[in-house]
């Protein structure tokens, strides 16, 4: 089980780095997809199938496809490598250093994180879908409704914004 953990977390981190390193935006997007798949596989090793499937369904199946779509339709070309700007590189290193120090100090003080994560029991008796559903619709029902309204507002906003330009343009979708 731990071997799988190292394989998939290595996959995740490696392709996560590739997202930044790749010059071609399409390659970056696909590396992010593989990184997401690695994360989903990590959830599977914890027997949390539902979250892993939702991870694939929402992020890789929907969000990243739209990303890819936009990259293709806008025809974003490969970025040309520029000369090194040493001031910017130095600034980046300082910010990175500060961020890592902050992460270590915050996570070091987090006592619950020191316990080993217990995977769900192996057998299919635990019903993670039902557990998550019951939790969301009882304890967090209000938050769920608020989120729903927020998404609805965003959807209406998108429709309004995209229909504004010219009445004749509204024919094509």
């Amino acid at each position, binding site marked *: 089980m731990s071997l799988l953990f190292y394989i998939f977390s290595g996959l995740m981190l490696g392709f996560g780095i590739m997202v930044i390193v790749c010059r071609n935006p399409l390659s970056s997007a696909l590396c992010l997809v593989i990184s997401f798949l690695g994360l989903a596989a990590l959830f599977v090793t914890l027997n949390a199938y539902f979250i892993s499937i939702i991870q*694939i369904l929402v992020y890789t199946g929907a969000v990243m*496809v739209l990303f890819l779509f936009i990259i293709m339709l806008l025809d974003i070309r490969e970025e040309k490598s520029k000369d090194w700007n040493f001031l910017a590189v130095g600034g980046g290193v300082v910010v990175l250093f500060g961020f890592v120090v902050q992460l270590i100090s915050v996570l070091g003080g987090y006592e619950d994180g020191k316990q080993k994560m217990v995977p769900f029991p192996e057998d299919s008796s635990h019903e993670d*879908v039902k557990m998550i559903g019951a939790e969301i619709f009882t304890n967090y029902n209000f938050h769920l409704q608020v989120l729903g309204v927020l998404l609805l507002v965003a959807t209406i906003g998108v429709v309004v914004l995209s229909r504004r330009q010219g009445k004749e343009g509204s024919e094509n979708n």
Partner: protein
Amino acid sequence: MPILISFIKIVMVIFVVILPMVAYSVWAERRVSAVIQERVGPNRVGIPFTKIRLFGLGQPIADGIKFLLKEDFTPGHVNKFYYWLAPALTMVPALLTCAVLPFGSELFGEKMVIADLNVGPLFIFAIASLSVYGIVLAGWASNSKYSFLGGVRSSSQMISYEISLGLSLVPVLLIFGELNLSEIVWEQSKNGWLLLPFWGDGAIWNGGVDRFFLLFPAFIAFIVFTTSIFAETNRLPFDLPECETELVAGYHTEYSSMKFALFFLGEYAAMIIGSGLIVTLFLGGWSLPFGLDAYLMNMTGDPEQIPWWLGLIHIGTFLAKVIVFILFFIWVRWTLPRFRYDQLMRLGWIIFFELALVNIFITAGILILTRGSAS
């Protein structure tokens, strides 16, 4: 040992069932289309060097050999890496989705499903949504306008119809209260198929009033789901991504030999697994109708144990139902004309999306009225 058993199941399902079925559904497609158009179709290739023709059953094998032996040409203007990656990315998700489909009850005490997940239908949607990548990449990497337009059309079509596909499934899951496909089939085996609830507790004379009234939303869900599967698999009447009159061949215009064959295999495999999913959810999967399962199991004396011959009958039943659906797919393809692209989008977003949404409310309402509070 469990790994070995899983391995055997994977090999059996993919190489013994699905891939030959793909090959022979291509043959069936050509023969059925010939019958519909009053032609003969491929009826000559039988056993080589003999006069035995076997209705042309050798044709798929000859086609497969042809695909392997043809020149594998990579045009100069393509993006090589993604051009090579795209066919595999179309094929693999299509085959992966068969992992959660229960293709039989039990054989020698072993469940006839590769991975008995508790999130079966969601798994299929998640993996099937990955196959868009192959098509998008094929269209983009080919660097040709036909391929690009085909890729864009295909992906927007798949994204649009995935929504109604997912929503039309919700009523089914509400009725069964279960996400495990094996359990769904067992329930249907005991208490009546979703579209045929006439035995067990599902029959109206045995108190299954809810199931009788739920037939209406179940039927709407069935229509929306089946049509969306047509759109998802890019089959006619929704094969806009590769419509020959406008786009040459759509996203696989620039592909030849085995790489083209992988797209072809992916499409047919998606069609077979889509049929399997429809059968599993709406028509009782591997189960025999009218409570025959329970009768046969009682006949052997031990109602818990499934004898091996019944297991084989179940597998046969599932395959028979899937084959009927494949023939339905083919029949539709050769009888209906192609939709126009805006008609397709309107159908998906304005009719099916709303219909599936309303259907969820109808189902929930019927469930509350007939079963009391949602338990």
